[in-house]
Protein backbone atom coordinates (compact mmCIF):
# COMPACT_ATOMS: atom_id res chain seq x y z
CA UNK A 1 0.00 0.00 0.00
CA UNK A 2 1.40 3.38 -1.02
CA UNK A 3 2.01 6.24 1.34
CA UNK A 4 -0.43 8.49 -0.45
CA UNK A 5 -3.26 5.95 -0.26
CA UNK A 6 -2.66 5.45 3.45
CA UNK A 7 -2.70 9.18 4.02
CA UNK A 8 -5.96 9.50 2.09
CA UNK A 9 -7.52 6.66 4.12
CA UNK A 10 -6.46 8.36 7.32
CA UNK A 11 -8.01 11.59 6.12
CA UNK A 12 -11.25 9.74 5.39
CA UNK A 13 -11.37 8.16 8.83
CA UNK A 14 -10.97 11.53 10.48
CA UNK A 15 -13.79 12.86 8.34
CA UNK A 16 -16.03 9.91 9.19
CA UNK A 17 -15.42 10.27 12.88
CA UNK A 18 -16.14 13.94 12.55
CA UNK A 19 -19.31 13.91 10.57
CA UNK A 20 -21.05 10.57 10.94
CA UNK A 21 -22.96 9.29 13.91
CA UNK A 22 -21.14 6.08 14.68
CA UNK A 23 -21.62 3.71 17.58
CA UNK A 24 -19.01 3.91 20.31
CA UNK A 25 -17.69 0.50 19.32
CA UNK A 26 -17.42 1.49 15.69
CA UNK A 27 -15.72 4.76 16.46
CA UNK A 28 -13.16 3.12 18.73
CA UNK A 29 -12.52 0.67 15.91
CA UNK A 30 -12.04 3.56 13.48
CA UNK A 31 -9.79 5.32 15.93
CA UNK A 32 -7.59 2.24 16.18
CA UNK A 33 -7.47 1.94 12.39
CA UNK A 34 -6.48 5.59 12.17
CA UNK A 35 -3.66 5.28 14.67
CA UNK A 36 -2.36 2.23 12.82
CA UNK A 37 -2.48 4.08 9.49
CA UNK A 38 -0.64 7.08 10.92
CA UNK A 39 2.00 4.71 12.23
CA UNK A 40 2.36 3.02 8.84
CA UNK A 41 2.68 6.42 7.15
CA UNK A 42 5.44 7.56 9.49
CA UNK A 43 7.20 4.21 9.12
CA UNK A 44 7.15 4.38 5.33
CA UNK A 45 8.59 7.91 5.48
CA UNK A 46 11.28 6.72 7.87
CA UNK A 47 12.14 3.77 5.69
CA UNK A 48 13.26 6.02 2.83
CA UNK A 49 17.01 6.41 2.57
CA UNK A 50 19.09 9.20 1.12
CA UNK A 51 20.81 7.97 -2.00
CA UNK A 52 22.27 9.85 -4.94
CA UNK A 53 23.37 7.88 -7.95
CA UNK A 54 24.63 8.76 -11.36
CA UNK A 55 24.26 6.79 -14.53
CA UNK A 56 27.04 6.20 -16.96
CA UNK A 57 27.02 4.35 -20.20
CA UNK A 58 29.82 1.97 -21.11
CA UNK A 59 31.07 1.75 -24.68
CA UNK A 60 29.00 -1.38 -25.26
CA UNK A 61 25.90 0.66 -24.42
CA UNK A 62 25.42 -0.98 -21.02
CA UNK A 63 24.06 1.33 -18.37
CA UNK A 64 25.94 1.48 -15.08
CA UNK A 65 24.67 3.03 -11.87
CA UNK A 66 27.27 4.50 -9.55
CA UNK A 67 27.13 6.54 -6.37
CA UNK A 68 27.32 10.27 -6.99
CA UNK A 69 30.04 12.28 -5.29
CA UNK A 70 28.45 15.40 -3.94
CA UNK A 71 30.46 18.56 -4.30
CA UNK A 72 30.43 20.91 -1.38
Amino acid at each position, binding site marked *: MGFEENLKKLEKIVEE*LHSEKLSLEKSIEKFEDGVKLADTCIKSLDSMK*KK*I*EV*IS*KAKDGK*IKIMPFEEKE
Partner: protein
Amino acid sequence: MKTQKILTVSELTRDIKEVIENVFCEVFVEGEISNLRQPSSGHVYFSLKDEQAQLRAVLFKNASVRIKFALADGMKAVCQGRVGVYERDGQYQLYVNDITPKGQGALQLAFEGLKDRLSKEGLFDEARKRPIPFLPQAIGVVTSLTGAVIQDILNVLYRRFPAAHVVICPARVQGPGAAEEIAAAIKDLNELKLKELKTMGVIILARGGGSLEDLWCFNEESVARAIFNSALPVISAVGHQTDYTIADFVADRRAPTPSAAAEIVMPSRLELDERIENFLTHLWRNLMDFVPEHAQRIDGLIEQAARALRQRVRAEEMRFSSVLNEMDALSPLAVLKRGYSVTTALDNDKCVFSANSLKKGELVKTRLSKGAFISEITQIVV
Protein backbone atom coordinates in the same frame (compact mmCIF):
# COMPACT_ATOMS: atom_id res chain seq x y z
CA MET B 1 59.02 25.18 -73.20
CA LYS B 2 62.29 24.34 -71.48
CA THR B 3 62.19 27.51 -69.48
CA GLN B 4 58.81 26.51 -68.11
CA LYS B 5 59.11 25.14 -64.67
CA ILE B 6 57.19 21.94 -64.23
CA LEU B 7 55.49 21.57 -60.92
CA THR B 8 54.32 18.43 -59.27
CA VAL B 9 50.68 18.29 -58.22
CA SER B 10 51.80 18.52 -54.66
CA GLU B 11 53.88 21.59 -55.36
CA LEU B 12 51.09 23.39 -57.15
CA THR B 13 48.59 22.44 -54.51
CA ARG B 14 50.92 23.68 -51.81
CA ASP B 15 51.30 27.01 -53.62
CA ILE B 16 47.56 27.38 -54.04
CA LYS B 17 47.11 26.49 -50.40
CA GLU B 18 49.60 29.15 -49.40
CA VAL B 19 47.90 31.85 -51.46
CA ILE B 20 44.38 30.99 -50.45
CA GLU B 21 45.13 30.51 -46.77
CA ASN B 22 47.05 33.79 -46.62
CA VAL B 23 44.29 35.79 -48.23
CA PHE B 24 41.29 34.12 -46.62
CA CYS B 25 42.62 33.58 -43.12
CA GLU B 26 39.52 35.13 -41.63
CA VAL B 27 36.24 35.42 -43.48
CA PHE B 28 32.59 35.81 -42.65
CA VAL B 29 30.35 34.02 -45.15
CA GLU B 30 26.60 34.09 -45.26
CA GLY B 31 24.68 31.24 -46.79
CA GLU B 32 22.18 28.49 -46.34
CA ILE B 33 23.27 25.29 -44.64
CA SER B 34 22.71 22.18 -46.71
CA ASN B 35 23.85 18.59 -46.91
CA LEU B 36 24.49 18.60 -43.17
CA ARG B 37 26.27 15.51 -41.81
CA GLN B 38 27.16 14.90 -38.18
CA PRO B 39 29.04 11.59 -37.90
CA SER B 40 29.89 10.12 -34.53
CA SER B 41 33.38 11.60 -34.70
CA GLY B 42 31.84 14.85 -33.51
CA HIS B 43 33.02 16.81 -36.53
CA VAL B 44 30.26 18.45 -38.51
CA TYR B 45 30.28 18.64 -42.30
CA PHE B 46 27.98 20.74 -44.45
CA SER B 47 27.77 22.98 -47.47
CA LEU B 48 27.07 26.66 -47.38
CA LYS B 49 25.23 27.79 -50.46
CA ASP B 50 23.41 30.64 -52.12
CA GLU B 51 21.66 30.83 -55.48
CA GLN B 52 24.80 30.65 -57.58
CA ALA B 53 27.46 28.81 -55.63
CA GLN B 54 28.28 26.52 -52.82
CA LEU B 55 31.13 26.12 -50.40
CA ARG B 56 32.19 23.01 -48.51
CA ALA B 57 32.47 23.64 -44.83
CA VAL B 58 33.70 21.69 -41.83
CA LEU B 59 33.14 22.40 -38.19
CA PHE B 60 35.60 20.48 -36.08
CA LYS B 61 34.54 18.96 -32.78
CA ASN B 62 36.53 21.42 -30.66
CA ALA B 63 34.83 24.34 -32.40
CA SER B 64 31.40 22.68 -32.52
CA VAL B 65 31.01 22.61 -28.73
CA ARG B 66 30.83 26.40 -28.83
CA ILE B 67 27.81 26.35 -31.11
CA LYS B 68 24.83 26.81 -28.88
CA PHE B 69 22.06 25.82 -31.21
CA ALA B 70 21.39 22.86 -33.42
CA LEU B 71 22.31 23.18 -37.04
CA ALA B 72 19.73 22.18 -39.58
CA ASP B 73 19.51 22.00 -43.32
CA GLY B 74 17.91 25.11 -44.73
CA MET B 75 19.05 27.27 -41.87
CA LYS B 76 20.53 30.62 -42.93
CA ALA B 77 23.70 31.44 -41.07
CA VAL B 78 26.82 33.51 -41.03
CA CYS B 79 29.94 31.39 -40.66
CA GLN B 80 33.17 32.79 -39.37
CA GLY B 81 36.37 30.91 -40.19
CA ARG B 82 39.24 30.48 -42.61
CA VAL B 83 39.46 28.95 -46.04
CA GLY B 84 41.86 26.06 -46.22
CA VAL B 85 42.96 23.60 -48.84
CA TYR B 86 42.72 19.91 -48.27
CA GLU B 87 45.66 18.77 -50.34
CA ARG B 88 44.80 15.10 -50.61
CA ASP B 89 41.48 15.83 -52.33
CA GLY B 90 42.60 19.05 -53.96
CA GLN B 91 39.71 20.84 -52.46
CA TYR B 92 39.29 24.05 -50.66
CA GLN B 93 36.81 24.36 -47.85
CA LEU B 94 35.74 26.65 -45.09
CA TYR B 95 37.05 25.71 -41.66
CA VAL B 96 34.31 27.13 -39.52
CA ASN B 97 35.15 28.63 -36.18
CA ASP B 98 31.75 30.02 -35.23
CA ILE B 99 28.26 30.14 -36.64
CA THR B 100 25.59 32.71 -35.96
CA PRO B 101 22.10 32.02 -37.15
CA LYS B 102 20.98 34.67 -39.60
CA GLY B 103 18.83 36.69 -37.26
CA GLN B 104 16.71 35.37 -34.38
CA GLY B 105 13.94 35.16 -36.91
CA ALA B 106 15.30 31.93 -38.31
CA LEU B 107 15.26 30.15 -34.94
CA GLN B 108 11.89 31.62 -34.07
CA LEU B 109 10.55 30.36 -37.36
CA ALA B 110 11.96 26.89 -36.75
CA PHE B 111 10.46 26.94 -33.25
CA GLU B 112 7.00 27.97 -34.44
CA GLY B 113 7.11 25.44 -37.25
CA LEU B 114 7.94 22.51 -35.00
CA LYS B 115 5.51 23.64 -32.31
CA ASP B 116 2.74 23.80 -34.84
CA ARG B 117 3.52 20.39 -36.30
CA LEU B 118 3.86 18.57 -32.97
CA SER B 119 0.76 20.26 -31.61
CA LYS B 120 -1.25 19.02 -34.57
CA GLU B 121 0.14 15.57 -33.97
CA GLY B 122 -1.19 15.65 -30.41
CA LEU B 123 2.10 15.74 -28.50
CA PHE B 124 0.89 18.62 -26.34
CA ASP B 125 -2.58 17.21 -25.61
CA GLU B 126 -3.73 17.88 -22.07
CA ALA B 127 -5.43 14.49 -21.96
CA ARG B 128 -2.08 12.80 -22.41
CA LYS B 129 -0.46 14.51 -19.46
CA ARG B 130 0.07 12.20 -16.52
CA PRO B 131 -0.11 13.14 -12.87
CA ILE B 132 3.15 13.54 -10.98
CA PRO B 133 3.31 10.90 -8.23
CA PHE B 134 2.87 12.32 -4.74
CA LEU B 135 5.94 10.85 -3.07
CA PRO B 136 8.13 9.16 -5.69
CA GLN B 137 10.43 6.53 -4.18
CA ALA B 138 13.14 7.51 -6.66
CA ILE B 139 13.56 10.57 -8.87
CA GLY B 140 15.37 10.60 -12.19
CA VAL B 141 17.15 13.83 -13.13
CA VAL B 142 18.39 14.63 -16.62
CA THR B 143 20.75 17.57 -16.65
CA SER B 144 24.40 18.52 -16.89
CA LEU B 145 26.65 17.45 -14.04
CA THR B 146 28.54 20.71 -14.29
CA GLY B 147 26.87 23.92 -13.27
CA ALA B 148 24.60 25.02 -10.48
CA VAL B 149 21.39 23.35 -11.66
CA ILE B 150 22.08 19.86 -10.33
CA GLN B 151 23.19 21.32 -6.99
CA ASP B 152 20.09 23.52 -6.81
CA ILE B 153 17.86 20.51 -7.40
CA LEU B 154 19.67 18.34 -4.85
CA ASN B 155 19.61 21.16 -2.30
CA VAL B 156 15.88 21.71 -2.61
CA LEU B 157 15.08 17.98 -2.65
CA TYR B 158 17.09 17.27 0.48
CA ARG B 159 15.92 20.34 2.29
CA ARG B 160 12.35 19.15 1.78
CA PHE B 161 12.92 15.47 2.30
CA PRO B 162 16.21 14.37 3.84
CA ALA B 163 15.92 10.80 2.54
CA ALA B 164 15.15 11.13 -1.15
CA HIS B 165 16.60 8.74 -3.71
CA VAL B 166 17.93 10.61 -6.76
CA VAL B 167 19.27 9.07 -9.94
CA ILE B 168 21.10 11.49 -12.19
CA CYS B 169 21.44 10.74 -15.86
CA PRO B 170 23.95 13.28 -17.11
CA ALA B 171 23.52 14.93 -20.49
CA ARG B 172 24.95 17.97 -22.14
CA VAL B 173 22.29 20.65 -22.24
CA GLN B 174 23.60 22.86 -24.99
CA GLY B 175 25.50 22.69 -28.23
CA PRO B 176 25.44 20.15 -31.03
CA GLY B 177 24.57 16.64 -29.95
CA ALA B 178 22.94 17.85 -26.74
CA ALA B 179 19.44 17.06 -27.94
CA GLU B 180 20.47 13.50 -28.75
CA GLU B 181 22.09 13.09 -25.34
CA ILE B 182 18.98 14.39 -23.58
CA ALA B 183 16.72 12.09 -25.57
CA ALA B 184 19.02 9.14 -24.83
CA ALA B 185 19.07 10.01 -21.11
CA ILE B 186 15.26 10.00 -20.95
CA LYS B 187 15.25 6.66 -22.72
CA ASP B 188 17.94 5.23 -20.42
CA LEU B 189 16.00 6.21 -17.30
CA ASN B 190 12.90 4.57 -18.69
CA GLU B 191 14.90 1.45 -19.41
CA LEU B 192 16.24 1.45 -15.85
CA LYS B 193 12.72 1.84 -14.51
CA LEU B 194 11.90 -1.49 -16.13
CA LYS B 195 14.93 -3.21 -14.61
CA GLU B 196 17.02 -2.08 -11.66
CA LEU B 197 15.07 0.98 -10.62
CA LYS B 198 11.42 -0.02 -10.46
CA THR B 199 10.82 2.54 -7.73
CA MET B 200 11.55 5.49 -10.01
CA GLY B 201 8.42 7.55 -10.37
CA VAL B 202 9.28 10.71 -12.26
CA ILE B 203 11.92 12.44 -14.38
CA ILE B 204 13.04 16.03 -13.95
CA LEU B 205 14.50 17.51 -17.12
CA ALA B 206 16.38 20.64 -16.16
CA ARG B 207 18.65 23.38 -17.39
CA GLY B 208 19.57 26.82 -16.12
CA GLY B 209 18.78 30.05 -17.87
CA GLY B 210 20.35 31.06 -21.16
CA SER B 211 19.77 32.66 -24.52
CA LEU B 212 17.38 31.23 -27.08
CA GLU B 213 20.39 29.57 -28.71
CA ASP B 214 21.53 28.13 -25.39
CA LEU B 215 18.18 26.52 -24.81
CA TRP B 216 17.80 25.41 -28.38
CA CYS B 217 18.30 21.67 -27.79
CA PHE B 218 15.06 21.69 -25.77
CA ASN B 219 13.32 22.85 -28.92
CA GLU B 220 14.39 19.86 -30.93
CA GLU B 221 12.11 17.17 -32.14
CA SER B 222 14.22 14.31 -30.75
CA VAL B 223 13.80 15.68 -27.22
CA ALA B 224 10.08 16.25 -27.75
CA ARG B 225 9.64 12.66 -28.96
CA ALA B 226 11.66 11.24 -26.07
CA ILE B 227 9.45 13.05 -23.57
CA PHE B 228 6.34 11.95 -25.42
CA ASN B 229 7.47 8.32 -25.46
CA SER B 230 8.60 8.29 -21.84
CA ALA B 231 6.58 5.93 -19.67
CA LEU B 232 7.66 7.98 -16.68
CA PRO B 233 6.02 11.37 -16.27
CA VAL B 234 8.42 14.21 -17.09
CA ILE B 235 8.66 17.61 -15.42
CA SER B 236 10.47 20.15 -17.56
CA ALA B 237 12.36 22.97 -15.90
CA VAL B 238 14.26 24.78 -18.60
CA GLY B 239 15.68 28.26 -18.23
CA HIS B 240 13.82 30.99 -16.43
CA GLN B 241 10.15 31.45 -15.79
CA THR B 242 9.66 33.35 -19.04
CA ASP B 243 11.37 30.79 -21.26
CA TYR B 244 9.06 28.38 -23.02
CA THR B 245 10.56 25.51 -24.99
CA ILE B 246 8.99 22.71 -27.01
CA ALA B 247 10.04 20.37 -24.17
CA ASP B 248 7.85 22.41 -21.81
CA PHE B 249 4.84 21.90 -24.04
CA VAL B 250 5.29 18.13 -24.29
CA ALA B 251 6.22 17.58 -20.64
CA ASP B 252 3.57 16.34 -18.22
CA ARG B 253 4.25 19.36 -16.07
CA ARG B 254 6.28 22.50 -16.57
CA ALA B 255 8.16 23.99 -13.65
CA PRO B 256 9.28 27.62 -13.92
CA THR B 257 12.78 26.80 -12.60
CA PRO B 258 14.80 23.68 -11.67
CA SER B 259 14.34 24.42 -7.95
CA ALA B 260 10.59 24.68 -8.48
CA ALA B 261 10.63 21.28 -10.20
CA ALA B 262 12.27 19.78 -7.12
CA GLU B 263 9.56 21.35 -4.97
CA ILE B 264 6.80 19.97 -7.14
CA VAL B 265 8.26 16.46 -7.06
CA MET B 266 9.08 16.23 -3.37
CA PRO B 267 6.61 16.97 -0.60
CA SER B 268 8.14 18.48 2.49
CA ARG B 269 8.81 15.90 5.21
CA LEU B 270 7.98 18.51 7.81
CA GLU B 271 4.61 19.21 6.23
CA LEU B 272 3.85 15.50 5.91
CA ASP B 273 4.68 14.90 9.57
CA GLU B 274 2.52 17.85 10.54
CA ARG B 275 -0.33 16.50 8.46
CA ILE B 276 -0.19 13.07 10.08
CA GLU B 277 0.15 14.67 13.49
CA ASN B 278 -2.88 16.77 12.72
CA PHE B 279 -4.92 13.71 11.78
CA LEU B 280 -3.91 11.99 15.00
CA THR B 281 -4.93 15.03 17.03
CA HIS B 282 -8.30 15.01 15.28
CA LEU B 283 -8.70 11.30 15.98
CA TRP B 284 -8.00 11.80 19.66
CA ARG B 285 -10.24 14.79 19.93
CA ASN B 286 -13.04 12.90 18.27
CA LEU B 287 -12.69 10.00 20.65
CA MET B 288 -12.38 12.29 23.63
CA ASP B 289 -15.55 14.07 22.56
CA PHE B 290 -17.17 10.77 22.02
CA VAL B 291 -16.45 9.06 25.34
CA PRO B 292 -17.88 11.73 27.64
CA GLU B 293 -20.83 12.04 25.34
CA HIS B 294 -21.50 8.34 25.77
CA ALA B 295 -20.70 8.33 29.46
CA GLN B 296 -23.17 11.11 29.97
CA ARG B 297 -25.78 9.18 28.10
CA ILE B 298 -25.16 6.12 30.24
CA ASP B 299 -25.37 8.19 33.43
CA GLY B 300 -28.64 9.63 32.21
CA LEU B 301 -30.02 6.18 31.53
CA ILE B 302 -29.04 4.92 34.97
CA GLU B 303 -30.68 7.89 36.57
CA GLN B 304 -33.84 7.35 34.60
CA ALA B 305 -33.90 3.69 35.56
CA ALA B 306 -33.44 4.52 39.23
CA ARG B 307 -36.21 7.09 39.13
CA ALA B 308 -38.53 4.61 37.46
CA LEU B 309 -37.69 2.00 40.08
CA ARG B 310 -38.31 4.39 42.91
CA GLN B 311 -41.66 5.34 41.45
CA ARG B 312 -42.55 1.72 41.06
CA VAL B 313 -41.64 0.94 44.64
CA ARG B 314 -43.69 3.85 45.90
CA ALA B 315 -46.66 2.70 43.81
CA GLU B 316 -46.36 -0.81 45.23
CA GLU B 317 -46.15 0.56 48.75
CA MET B 318 -49.29 2.56 48.26
CA ARG B 319 -51.12 -0.42 46.87
CA PHE B 320 -50.01 -2.55 49.77
CA SER B 321 -51.23 -0.16 52.42
CA SER B 322 -54.56 0.26 50.70
CA VAL B 323 -54.93 -3.51 50.65
CA LEU B 324 -54.11 -3.50 54.36
CA ASN B 325 -56.79 -0.93 54.97
CA GLU B 326 -59.26 -2.97 53.08
CA MET B 327 -58.31 -6.03 54.98
CA ASP B 328 -58.57 -4.07 58.18
CA ALA B 329 -62.09 -2.99 57.35
CA LEU B 330 -63.12 -6.58 56.86
CA SER B 331 -61.53 -7.81 60.05
CA PRO B 332 -64.00 -8.90 62.83
CA LEU B 333 -61.82 -7.06 65.30
CA ALA B 334 -62.73 -3.83 63.49
CA VAL B 335 -66.40 -4.70 63.99
CA LEU B 336 -65.79 -5.22 67.66
CA LYS B 337 -64.06 -1.84 67.76
CA ARG B 338 -67.28 -0.26 66.68
CA GLY B 339 -69.00 -1.69 69.82
CA TYR B 340 -70.23 -5.02 68.47
CA SER B 341 -69.41 -8.30 70.23
CA VAL B 342 -69.20 -11.99 69.37
CA THR B 343 -70.69 -14.69 71.47
CA THR B 344 -69.45 -18.25 71.24
CA ALA B 345 -70.43 -21.42 72.94
CA LEU B 346 -68.04 -22.00 75.79
CA ASP B 347 -67.55 -25.71 75.17
CA ASN B 348 -66.84 -25.66 71.38
CA ASP B 349 -66.11 -22.00 70.54
CA LYS B 350 -68.80 -21.98 67.84
CA CYS B 351 -70.40 -18.65 67.10
CA VAL B 352 -73.88 -18.20 68.37
CA PHE B 353 -76.05 -17.01 65.51
CA SER B 354 -79.50 -17.74 66.92
CA ALA B 355 -81.00 -17.49 70.43
CA ASN B 356 -82.90 -20.67 69.65
CA SER B 357 -79.66 -22.66 69.78
CA LEU B 358 -79.16 -21.72 73.43
CA LYS B 359 -80.52 -23.33 76.54
CA LYS B 360 -81.27 -21.92 79.91
CA GLY B 361 -78.33 -22.36 82.24
CA GLU B 362 -75.77 -22.69 79.40
CA LEU B 363 -72.49 -20.79 79.66
CA VAL B 364 -71.37 -18.58 76.74
CA LYS B 365 -68.30 -16.50 76.13
CA THR B 366 -68.69 -13.00 74.75
CA ARG B 367 -65.70 -11.36 73.11
CA LEU B 368 -65.55 -7.57 73.08
CA SER B 369 -63.11 -5.16 71.44
CA LYS B 370 -61.09 -5.44 74.58
CA GLY B 371 -61.35 -8.63 76.62
CA ALA B 372 -64.24 -11.05 77.06
CA PHE B 373 -66.63 -12.25 79.68
CA ILE B 374 -68.53 -15.46 80.41
CA SER B 375 -72.20 -15.35 81.22
CA GLU B 376 -75.01 -17.81 82.07
CA ILE B 377 -78.23 -17.86 80.05
CA THR B 378 -81.10 -16.98 82.38
CA GLN B 379 -83.81 -16.29 79.84
CA ILE B 380 -84.20 -16.82 76.12
CA VAL B 381 -86.00 -14.10 74.19
CA VAL B 382 -87.15 -14.93 70.71
